[in-house]
């Protein structure tokens, strides 16, 4: 059994292996097993449906962070042509945890900012597990302003455990870097579409997450704190991640209910990792649809609507 496979995916994996075995056997031995194989394939679908329509919030968090899940590097070549990466914050360095650049989306130039995760330990170390430093957010800020100057729609892609909590990050002003991005994005004079691909980790996600449309994959999560951190702080027990994930209301379905996002992009049966082309196609379709709508809105109105969108988020009572 491959390490790192999700517990609740194991029965699916086992059944799929059985299908593969039978297919191999049937072709090498030249025996017709198609009835048996088709029956098993139907069972795979039934099993996937059963497991993936009943995922707990914590299981969704695990899917959102899954090593097999498509990453920004998988989306870029499928969504765009001619991606040109732009690097550096012109102040300190280049943070690989944030990818930024220009690309063509169906012939139209767009600006892109996204978190970059790796597929394995080695590639993850290179991008700091998708946890940006201030220079990453400042590079992002540079691209935001570039998009505004050249009237390019800005597309951002969220997939991060959070902004990096380390010595250098503090010394160079992590909080300020995030705060400035919130301010800049809130009044940026071009359409901004935010796609939450996997993990939306707190301020580190929000720093590129203020936009006119927020789209979210059906197994992605968005949270004020990771379930682990929340369990440690509030329950004083790291083992309470299931409870913390449920309490935090971090699923895409919660985000829609709380009116944080505009649309859920449905993942293929069994999760986005089952079919990269299918999910990227759906993401592209959704981006194009919303971009068409946003391009029709006058820029003053666009900025005003974006302000009001965030202005009205909050649950409180006014007693008299």
């Amino acid at each position, binding site marked *: 059994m491959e390490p790192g496979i999700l517990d609740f995916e194991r029965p699916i994996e086992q059944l799929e292996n059985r299908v593969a075995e039978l297919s191999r056997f049937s072709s090498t031995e030249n025996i017709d097993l198609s009835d048996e194989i088709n029956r098993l394939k139907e069972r795979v679908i039934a099993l996937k449906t059963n497991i993936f329509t009943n995922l707990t919030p914590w299981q969704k968090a695990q899917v959102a962070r899954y090593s097999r899940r498509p990453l920004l590097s998988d989306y870029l070549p499928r969504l765009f042509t001619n991606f040109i990466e732009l690097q550096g914050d012109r102040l300190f360095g280049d943070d690989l945890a944030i990818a930024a650049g220009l690309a063509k989306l169906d012939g139209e130039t767009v600006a892109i900012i996204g978190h970059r995760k790796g597929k394995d330990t080695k590639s993850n170390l290179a991008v700091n597990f998708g946890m940006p430093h201030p220079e990453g957010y400042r590079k992002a800020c540079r691209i935001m302003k570039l998009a505004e100057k050249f009237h390019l729609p800005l597309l951002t892609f969220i997939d991060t455990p959070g*902004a*990096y*909590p*380390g*010595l250098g*990050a*503090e*010394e*160079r*002003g*992590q*909080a*300020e870097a*995030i*705060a*400035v991005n*919130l*301010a*800049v994005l*809130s*009044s940026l004079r071009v359409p901004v579409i935010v796609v939450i691909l996997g993990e*939306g980790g*707190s*301020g580190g996600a*929000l*720093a590129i*997450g*203020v936009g006119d449309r927020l789209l979210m994959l059906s197994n992605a999560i*968005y*949270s*004020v*704190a990771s379930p682990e*951190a*929340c369990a440690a*702080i*509030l*329950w*004083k027990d790291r083992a309470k991640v299931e*409870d*913390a994930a449920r*309490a*935090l*209301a*971090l699923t895409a379905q*919660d*985000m829609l209910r*709380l009116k*944080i996002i505009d649309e859920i992009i449905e993942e293929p049966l069994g999760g986005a990792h089952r079919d990269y082309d299918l999910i990227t196609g759906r993401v592209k379709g959704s981006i194009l649809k919303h971009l068409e709508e946003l391009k029709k809105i006058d820029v003053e109105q666009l900025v005003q609507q*974006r*302000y009001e969108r*965030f*202005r009205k*988020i*909050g*649950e*409180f*009572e*006014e*007693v*008299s």
Partner: protein
Amino acid sequence: MAWFRKPQYGTISPDSRRQDIPGGLWVKCTACGDLVYRKDWEASLKVCPNCNYYSRLGARERLDLVLDHNSFKEYDANLTPVDFLNFTDSVPYKDRLTKAQENTGFMDACLTGEGRLSGHLVAIGALDFFFMGGSMGSVVGEKITRLIEQAAAKHSPLIIISASGGARMQEGVVSLMQMAKTSAAIARFSQTGGLYLSVLTDPATGGVMASFASLGDIIIAEEDALIGFAGPRVIEQTIRQKLPGGFQKADFVLEHGLIDMVVKRSELRDRLAKLLEMLT
């Protein structure tokens, strides 16, 4: 070098330092253990005369410290938090709120309004660390945003005195979004030429620091305050080593170019007054 006398990072538990202060004639300093005559301690604005340790102040004390006597007019005192996620951890959010409301006398973790500072009319807010660690949920986010909008409408300078451990987890992602909401309001206010003085007091961390508290035209830190994005414990767990002495303290963030100045508690009012005089 006050931090050498203050080895513990007790910044995230609001109650711990209060408990050490009995209600009698004498006050025991949490840092040096000295017994200080209460009147002396209060005269020195709750800074230990012996070791210069800064005890935390509540929002009301903060405003009293800088505003002209009896000049404060509160805004939005009727905004109250709701437990819209039915959030229950080791203690239900509802119970945490009730307890904090009883302890502080406030509905939530900030006080906003207008007042006069050395004669200048200002829109002013203060966060209260004694109310759930000064955490920002919907009420704090809404009150701060309304305060900023009032400052814009009245063309008055804005002063926000922050003390916060970060976002309020019990309100989930809605509390995270208050960072965007308040920052957007500051951006608008700034674009219309408004003056915003941000005052950072112990501790200024997390979502408050990664939003409006970092966006001041001028950022002033109180002496010895802890200032940063992540809390010291989170950083220590991440890097798996002890933090160097003074890390994230006011002098440290000043040296790293992140703030304009560090002031003593006793000098804050005069410094604000001078800045208002020069910039308005």
